């Protein structure tokens, strides 16, 4: 959450957008909020939003920190494809669940390390550096699967996609855990502050003693890991690795989720939970469109229209003219200093 937020009023546009989309879904489809148990697993449209939103939410967690350093990672969709391809192929080759997971996550870490080194050490601009893996990564995944959809039947791996823990679908559980771990890492240590500092001004944060290359590499590695987890979830969900389509264009959805969550592409202050809220807003919209029964030709137009409203609500210029429930108007979008007013760990989630 934004560090200098004195109350919830600052994040009202984000939560408000999610609430508005959910409400619209309910109006279109009255059973939207009804939930029941099916085979020991929660079942309902709201659960679908959480479950289907999980991959983009996972990507958004890693992407938030990359964007906070004033970077961007375009390769996450391709990394998802690689991780899924590795997991499915090794499972087919008869490997056990633990080594399969280790290999898939390891592939993600390696991809992240590659991106991080290009950005931090070779100082290539992030959008270009990660574009390399965005293009090449899908090819790597296709090489691993030999261009086919590799299907598997391993119940252990499938559990990650369609199992449940205390009736909650596993993708949702995994996302919550990763969000918690990430928040703990960045908010109970100085790491979060360093990430913001690097994003605001890399030179002066280096001058202030921040080891900027290490921070940058760490952020991209974590983003790669998040993408690998998302790839596992997607592959496990359909019990197969589809190298051509897994994670296709999801990097853009992830960036959108971060932006809808209120983190600036100019780096600096970031909100992990808000990015997840952004991801859920996007998914709520997608699910709503599917439930509404519109013709598929309208999907993208409806989505764009809703997004425009959400982003307009957050526009600093526009919000000055809108009546706000909070006591203060939004500050102009100058890079904030990231000075914590209440450095309690709970503010980190």
């Amino acid at each position, binding site marked *: 959450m934004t560090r200098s937020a004195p109350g919830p009023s600052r994040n009202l546009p984000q939560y408000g957008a999610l609430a508005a989309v959910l409400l619209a879904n309910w109006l279109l489809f009255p059973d939207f909020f009804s939930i029941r148990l099916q085979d020991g697993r929660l079942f309902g*449209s709201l659960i*679908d939003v959480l479950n289907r939103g999980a991959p983009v939410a996972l990507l958004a967690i890693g992407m938030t920190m990359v964007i906070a350093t004033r970077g961007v990672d375009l390769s996450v969709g391709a990394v998802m494809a690689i991780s899924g391809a590795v997991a499915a192929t090794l499972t087919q080759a008869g490997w056990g669940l633990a080594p399969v997971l280790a290999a898939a996550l390891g592939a993600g870490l390696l991809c992240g390390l590659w991106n991080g080194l290009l950005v931090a050490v070779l100082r290539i601009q992030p959008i270009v550096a990660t574009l390399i893996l965005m293009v090449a990564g899908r090819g790597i995944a296709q090489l691993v699967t030999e*261009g*086919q*959809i590799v299907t598997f039947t391993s119940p252990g791996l499938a559990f990650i996609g369609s199992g449940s823990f205390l009736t909650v679908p596993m993708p949702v559980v995994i996302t919550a855990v990763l969000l918690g771990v990430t928040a703990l890492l960045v908010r109970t240590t100085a790491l979060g502050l360093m990430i913001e500092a690097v994003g605001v001004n890399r030179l002066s944060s280096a001058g202030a003693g921040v080891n900027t290359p290490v921070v940058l590499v760490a952020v991209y590695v974590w983003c790669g890991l998040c993408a690998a987890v998302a790839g596992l979830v997607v592959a496990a*969900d359909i019990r197969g690795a*589809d190298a051509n389509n897994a994670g296709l264009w999801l990097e853009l959805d992830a960036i959108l989720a971060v932006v809808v969550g209120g983190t600036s592409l100019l780096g600096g202050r970031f909100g992990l939970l808000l990015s997840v809220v952004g991801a859920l807003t996007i998914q709520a919209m997608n699910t709503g469109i599917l439930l509404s029964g519109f013709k598929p030709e309208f999907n993208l137009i409806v989505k764009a229209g809703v997004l425009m409203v959400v982003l307009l609500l957050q526009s600093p210029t526009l919000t000055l003219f809108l009546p706000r429930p909070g006591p203060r108007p939004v500050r102009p979008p100058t890079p904030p200093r990231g000075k914590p007013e209440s450095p309690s760990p709970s503010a980190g989630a």
Partner: protein
Amino acid sequence: MSRTWLISAAAAAALLIGLGGAQAADKKLVVGFSQIGSESGWRAAETKTAKTEAEKRGIDLKISDAQQKQENQIKAVRSFVAQGVDAIFIAPVVATGWDSVLKEAKEAKIPVVLLDRQIETRDPGLYMTAVTSDTVLEGRVAGEWLAKQTGGTCNVVELQGTVGSSPAINRKKGFDEVVAKNPGMKIVRTQSGDFTRAKGKEVMESFIKAENGGKGICAVYAHNDDMAVGAIQAIKEAGLKPGKDILVVSIDGVPDIFKAMAEGEANATVELTPNMAGPAFDALIAFKKDGKAPPKWIQTESALFTPDTAKAEYERRKDAY
């Protein structure tokens, strides 16, 4: 030692003479095939089938992989022309931009056959024939099976392919024709699943919720098998039985759908045969023999497959894909 030498030398000589004789008697046809690439399992199967069909007929097939690029295909066609092959097969990656290179082939008097896709050209004389499936027919065959199976009364949900793609448009058109003829048949929901398994599953999940937990759905019609496989998982996770509570009919005939049919979870698929080269070879051989030009469009069969042959069909296909 010397004796083995002698024998092998003699054998080699005999082989050479034999080969030379065969070549002289009946010149082997040489065909150049410019393939798009191997972007899908179906495409890989098409290439593989082309090789085996060529072997069956004793044709020398040279395959060039264009890696999704038209410029590579044009280069390949030019090199085939330079090599003086007997015919050129092209699976065109895009519909336009073929006129000049096809003219070069025509001037060299090399017949060109299009496989699997049509092209747009002002001069249809530039190619001899096109071997493709009839995608409207595929949708019609799927629809007719469903109409027969349900006595013409069925609430169908439809998983469309990528919006605006020609197989999605045509497979919808063919199916809609059957729906129009059966007043009891209705498409209650239709959405795009982008031809992918993941989207097919997601869309089916919301269809089930939107139609009273799936109770209002009699069948799902998917424009390809992959979306159907995703839909089957969604049906299962909703606590329903795919293939019984909700019938599953789709198009393509990939191995995974035969597996699902063998397990009773899918009901029918219309095959898009990967054997595009076979009919093309036959047309070519007939043309070379008595100069009879084949029809401009050779349609491949759109055969319907049901669970009773699924197990055998799966075994037959799993290695071709």
